[in-house]
């Protein structure tokens, strides 16, 4: 959420947002074979733990499991008819309560860390809870007042067992014109 600089106080924003949790979101469908097949088709995967039902039954999991990075797929509701595939600005990007105020609205996704805690099995029903793990200002070449946000999402199964955690670090920066118009820019770039 882009806000004017006079309304931007990083310490107040940190106090309000760091540690804030969003609402529980339940996956639309149970963990199913076919999305796993498509996922493995995408990466030439041939892991029988993911793909072969007979092998899965005889494995230590007694069924097939999903690649851990599919936790968000099965805890979500997918791309639903009605979104035509155009600019992502027209798509719901998450709940407003977790939309951290920033000075710019140009986004860069930087890194992702996944932790995989427990297997995600065929038939599981996943749900997730998003949250804000950190917010801070750190200059980048494009903008000395870039605002970095670390989002953390925890994924659970139908027994409320934690199965995975993802942390995504991204930033929002201002346009070159906005940076040039800021009287602080020259001083900050000398530091």
């Amino acid at each position, binding site marked *: 959420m882009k806000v004017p600089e006079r309304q931007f106080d990083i310490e107040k924003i940190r106090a309000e947002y760091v540690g804030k949790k969003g609402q529980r979101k339940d996956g639309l469908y149970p963990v199913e074979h076919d999305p796993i097949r498509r996922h493995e088709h995408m990466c030439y*995967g041939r892991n029988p733990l993911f793909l072969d039902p007979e092998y899965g039954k005889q*494995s230590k999991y007694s069924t097939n499991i999903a*690649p*851990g990075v599919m936790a968000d*797929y099965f805890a979500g509701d997918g791309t639903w008819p009605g979104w035509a595939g155009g*600019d992502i600005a027209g798509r719901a990007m998450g709940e407003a309560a977790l939309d951290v105020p920033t000075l710019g609205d140009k986004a860069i996704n930087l890194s992702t*860390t996944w932790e*995989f805690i427990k297997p995600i099995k065929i038939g599981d029903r996943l749900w997730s809870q998003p949250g804000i793990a950190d917010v801070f200002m750190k200059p980048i070449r494009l903008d000395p007042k870039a605002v970095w946000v670390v989002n953390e999402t925890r994924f659970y199964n139908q027994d409320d067992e934690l199965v995975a955690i993802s942390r995504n670090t991204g930033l929002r920066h201002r346009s070159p014109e906005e940076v040039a118009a800021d009287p602080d820019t020259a001083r900050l770039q000398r530091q």
Partner: protein
Amino acid sequence: MAVKLDPLPQIYFDDVKIGDELLGFGYKLDWTEMVKQVSGSQDFYAVHHDPEFAKSGGHKDIFYNTGWTRSQLYRLLSDYAGPEGWVRKLHFEMRRMNRPNNSIRVKGKVADRKVTPDGNEVHIELWIENDEEGVATPASGVVFLPSRR
């Protein structure tokens, strides 16, 4: 048609040495791969499949999405972990792009190995490289491996 896939080989912690290379894989990002990217990730954001849309946003061309990227890296780790292992962590950084007609390689090597209260940890440096940009996606991972003992 019944699915019948051969089990992946199992590597044991006892046999792992720092510097060991993982069995990587690679292929060319032709238009069929672009379609598979959308199918497999269900990411329909046009910047990943519509060249005109991507160029209108200042990009050189479409570029492959995060879901595709993480699937390649996770596959390398889960293939290495084998049926008795477990992929515990994956971290990756989207430094450069993978674009149409690039030939990519997904590679990795063992950076560390240690016994912890959680299990036999093998730390892996991995990455996606392409013939246009070099290493596009540096990454790291941790897998737990079984012991022969």
